[in-house]
């Protein structure tokens, strides 16, 4: 059997030396490869050095992805929250007026759903994945947590899951009064009035320390907390403190005449005609109507 000599595998002196000398192009390639490797090593060393700096080692309790994405996640969180709103309206987004209407616009109207509709009963739960994605993108989006807890406790009939959501919100936002406000609402819904009172007290205490935020929304929240706490004071048999809370509400919103009437009734008889339990129930019911389905019809 014949063996075929392979010069490259033999001794250099046996003729394989010519193949082993790299050409000029090959030498250039090797040079470039070495330069890239050196640069890569430098970049790696620099990255290690930067990550070992003490100010970057602070434990913020947030994941790596969270830190890498930076403020992009806030935008993503807002987008996903808006998506939840769109899902609630059966895929119909916000209406924007158009400058002109042509054949394409008419066809678009045919293709895309329009009108003002809401999901109902268990269907509402379809917004949950988007709220879930929203709070994963931005764990400080308390509104998303609150909305999720509201529907879980309501339509889903799962207050245990709502409580879990609010506990997660509390872990991520320990100083936010809105989480305690929602926990109070949940406790009221469950009829745990003593617990609700503690949550509203905590919410009010945190509210007094809050400096930043949407001022208008904060006024509405304060009025809500004071009203709930006032009703709970009534249940505790403390009409004076209840009246003080209502007075504070009327200072914020002077147009709330029913509050004034209730204050007068409490001043005269130490109790009001409408039972506080009924009012708590109706207040919770009022909260669910965020926009009327037939308002544009």
């Amino acid at each position, binding site marked *: 059997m014949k063996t075929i000599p392979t010069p490259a595998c033999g001794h250099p002196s046996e003729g394989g030396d010519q193949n082993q000398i790299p050409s000029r192009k090959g030498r250039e390639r090797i040079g470039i490869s070495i330069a890239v490797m050196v640069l890569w090593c430098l970049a790696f060393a620099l990255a290690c050095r930067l990550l070992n700096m003490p100010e970057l080692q602070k434990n913020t309790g947030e994941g790596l992805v969270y830190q890498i994405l930076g403020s992009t996640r806030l935008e993503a969180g807002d987008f996903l929250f808006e998506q939840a709103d769109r899902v609630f309206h059966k895929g119909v987004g916000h209406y924007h*007026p158009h400058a002109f209407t042509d054949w394409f616009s008419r066809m678009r109207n045919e293709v895309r759903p329009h009108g003002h509709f809401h999901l109902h009963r268990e269907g509402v739960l379809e917004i949950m994945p988007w709220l879930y994605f929203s709070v994963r993108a931005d764990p400080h989006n308390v509104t998303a947590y609150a909305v999720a807890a509201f529907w879980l406790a309501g339509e889903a009939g799962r207050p245990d899951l709502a409580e879990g959501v609010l506990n997660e919100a509390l872990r991520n936002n320990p100083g936010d009064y809105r989480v305690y406000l929602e926990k109070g609402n949940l406790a009221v819904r469950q009829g745990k009035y003593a617990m609700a009172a503690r949550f509203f007290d905590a919410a009010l205490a945190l509210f007094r320390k809050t400096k930043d935020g949407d001022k208008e929304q904060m006024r509405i929240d304060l009025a809500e907390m004071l009203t709930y706490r006032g009703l709970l004071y009534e249940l505790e048999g403390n009409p004076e403190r209840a009246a003080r809370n209502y007075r504070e509400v009327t200072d914020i919103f002077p147009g709330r005449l029913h509050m004034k009437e209730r204050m007068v009734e409490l001043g005269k008889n130490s109790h009001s005609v409408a039972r506080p339990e009924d009012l708590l129930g109706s207040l919770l019911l009022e909260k669910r109507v965020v926009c009327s389905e037939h308002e544009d019809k």
Partner: protein
Amino acid sequence: MIKSIVIAQQVWRETLRRKDLYVLFILLLAFFITLMTLNVFGLKSLVGHIKEIGLLLVWIFCWFLTIGISTRQLPHEEKSGTIFSLLAKPVGRAELIIGKWLGACSMAGLATLVFYVVLGGIVLARGGTFSLRLALEAFLLQCCFIGVLAALGLLLSTRMNGDAAATLTAILSVAAFLILPQVPQWSANVVGRQREIMLAIYYALPHLELFDLRQRLVYDWEPLRIEPLGMILAYGLLVAAMFLVIAWLAYRNKKFSRDII
């Protein structure tokens, strides 16, 4: 027509030999499995988000596939030199373009059908619903979308290399899909020359958003009426035909050089 079908068969074989289709399919399955295993606040049997994200993925993958298949056909033939043996046969350039378009459309359409079936199976298995008529309408309109996109890809690839044609097709189609529906709203705040340019672009580019029935399908709206469905299908076929005619005009006198081999 027979010659075009033979060329289309060649496109199918070439696409099936490549890995794109299988990679996309595996990716889609991976996404679906991830979505299904998601624990959303402890709730089970939620299906709306799977429908919505699933359909979005089907659209994106169909987009990739159509652009990939359609834009590489002619440049690949020219680069490998097979265009000479192809045109030496009694095949006209119009037949070549139609054959390539047919092949790209049917392959991407078939892949989309498989994606729809997989998504439909998952949704039904999780207790969700899909209106069959609406799903058929959505698929039909998506096929029309594929036809327009493939024709645009072929048109651009007659005078560009494959990568450039794919990039430009992707940019044009994504811009048309996302920006054109906003023009009637934006033009309210613009006057003069800017408005004219905006309207010129609005009417020049194909309105791909008309082929998108995802929202109706996801939220179980009633099916599209026959009249608008027919009009949109006719519009799609017209645009695709127009692109194919321009592609033929651009390609009929094109000279090929053996130097590029």
